[in-house]
């Protein structure tokens, strides 16, 4: 039984990272009905910048917590600017173009970010060897590390803040109005262009934090790390019901747990025929099953197609 709970703990940690990235997808989709394919790569940029900056600062003799906090702040800032630029250059001019066009620019941007990152950081895996603390607690054979608690706690805090922002602020009200109908929001005096920009900026900031968490958790970063993470986060958003904030949080955590449990048990269930090297398949299987049986996701609302 301790294996089970251990995998649940690992899954919740992983899932909280997915949830933060999923929030970025779901906010953008909710407002513009656009899959921001480059979002995963924003995560990657955030992760690699934090990695380099903290290495640099530690080299300069700063203490680890201070260096890490500065690194997180720098990467959040850079990603916010990046998110804003992406929206401005690649999506805004295409607001009224056929739906395939922004999808292709998104793919192009994703590729562009990856290749630029490959130029800057190289193609090899960069190790991140500094851990804040190695403290961990063991309870009935289940080990929980301080890092896992930190990741989980910080993402819960961020999710709470976002929730508050969306439901109890002027910007949040504007965002919800724009999501319901851009035209009507405009009639009510909402500057929808600015709201969309701000949505991208907020999503990118969350992505940066998620990237830092990912790099610390796996202790390694690479220019391709955003792709799979982004895809899984998108799955999480769909699982919870895309466009729905609560859904993205729930979907992220759930997907993390499903993946961890799947990877932990697939070997036993299939008597060793499939191993944990199939763990990435689970996210896609979940995605396909959800879309077939419950296309609106767990918490999504029904939409009726009109002619």
């Amino acid at each position, binding site marked *: 039984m301790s294996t089970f709970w251990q995998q649940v703990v690992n899954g919740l940690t992983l899932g909280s990272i997915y949830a933060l990235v999923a929030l970025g997808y779901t906010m953008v989709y909710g407002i513009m009905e656009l899959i921001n394919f480059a979002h995963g790569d924003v995560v990657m940029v955030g992760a690699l910048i934090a990695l380099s900056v903290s290495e640099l600062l530690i080299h300069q003799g700063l203490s680890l917590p201070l260096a890490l906090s500065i690194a997180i702040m720098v990467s959040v800032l850079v990603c916010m600017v990046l998110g804003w630029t992406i929206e401005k250059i690649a999506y805004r001019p295409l607001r009224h173009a056929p739906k395939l066009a922004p999808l292709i620019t998104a793919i192009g941007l994703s*590729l562009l970010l990856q290749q630029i990152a490959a130029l800057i950081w190289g193609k090899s895996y960069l190790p991140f060897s500094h851990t804040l603390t190695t403290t961990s607690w063991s309870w009935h054979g289940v080990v929980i590390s301080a890092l896992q608690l930190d990741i989980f706690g910080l993402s819960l805090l961020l999710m709470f803040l976002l929730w508050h922002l969306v439901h109890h602020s002027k910007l949040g009200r504007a965002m919800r109005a724009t999501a319901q109908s851009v035209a009507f929001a405009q009639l009510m005096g909402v500057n929808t262009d600015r709201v969309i920009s701000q949505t991208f900026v907020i999503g990118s900031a969350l992505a940066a934090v998620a990237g830092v968490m990912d790099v610390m958790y796996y202790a390694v970063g690479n220019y391709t790390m955003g792709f799979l993470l982004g895809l899984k986060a998108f799955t999480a958003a769909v699982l919870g019901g895309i466009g729905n904030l609560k859904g993205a949080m729930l979907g992220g955590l759930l997907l993390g747990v499903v993946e961890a449990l799947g990877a932990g048990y697939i070997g036993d269930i299939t008597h060793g025929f499939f191993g944990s090297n199939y763990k990435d398949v689970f996210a896609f299987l979940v995605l396909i099953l959800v879309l077939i049986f419950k296309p609106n996701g767990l918490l999504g609302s029904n939409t009726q197609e009109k002619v």
Partner: protein
Amino acid sequence: MKKNISLLVAVLLLPWLLYFSAGQSWVRIIDFSLLYLMLSLGLNVVVGYAGLLDLGYIAFFAVGAYCYALLSSPQFGIHWPLLVILPIGAVCAGLFGVLLGAPTLRLKGDYLAIVTLGFGEIIRIFLNNLSSPVNITNGPQGISDIDPLHLGSIVFNHGLVFGDIRIPSVINIYYLFLLAVIITMIFSSRLERSRVGRAWMAIREDELAASCVGIHTKRYKLLAFGLGATMGGLSGGLFAGFQGFVSPESFTLMESVMILCMVVLGGMGHIPGVIVGSLLLSILPEVLRETAGWQRGLFGQVIVDPANLRLIMFALALVVMMLVRPEGLIPSALRRKEMQHE
């Protein structure tokens, strides 16, 4: 008519001109671009005609290639002839297409794109891992020593000798692939103008309206998926026989994206557009590869790795193209009109 004949002559002479001016490697690049053209024509059926966004199209190419590889290599010791394996590969790929299509056709646009993307990745993960406990695909190493493309005693991968004239292997392959491309092209242009093609376009423009005028939308969408996948499988088989080696590396998401870009950039649902798009995008990266030499000439050293640079240029081209001309380079008349209205 006269124009057509001169075009045909030009196409037939092209490999010889390239062979003697630029060398064998460039003819090889053209061979590969013909394979890409076949793939784009197949994807064009799915995306261009029926309007179903497929981001995992390379999976069908992979199925065709692995079918060929498994049925004519030392992997299982099976060496079947080309004319048996190619259809098997095509049918297998078509079945996979229907298999993917059947449960997912209720989905629309972006959702369908993501599911097909997931499907493509699942196929690749399986190809990568189906090496133990039963070794089927040989894992990441892939399958090598695949039999060359051959009909009886004619082996296309080797040079042919007719009296005094020796036809180099790359040119052989060129003619073989050209034949396959022309057949695919005729097939899809006939499809486009048939009842089926009109049904697809009706579905693409408005699915609900199409079903209201009595089009069995589900059946036609499945047909599009199946036929598109069949074309992909066919070119996959040719790829395996040409290359003599397949591995999961060749079937990444990047390739699916590349083919989609060829179709969209050229002009969706319009065969001349698809031709231009796929030739341009498959040859452009090779030209950009040459930048290493230019950089050395200009700066005395290679400043930016050409492999990176060509992908950066490629990505920029995609973004700029969509911003400047979202309907594609050579759009069909219908589509151009649509874009002007908006």
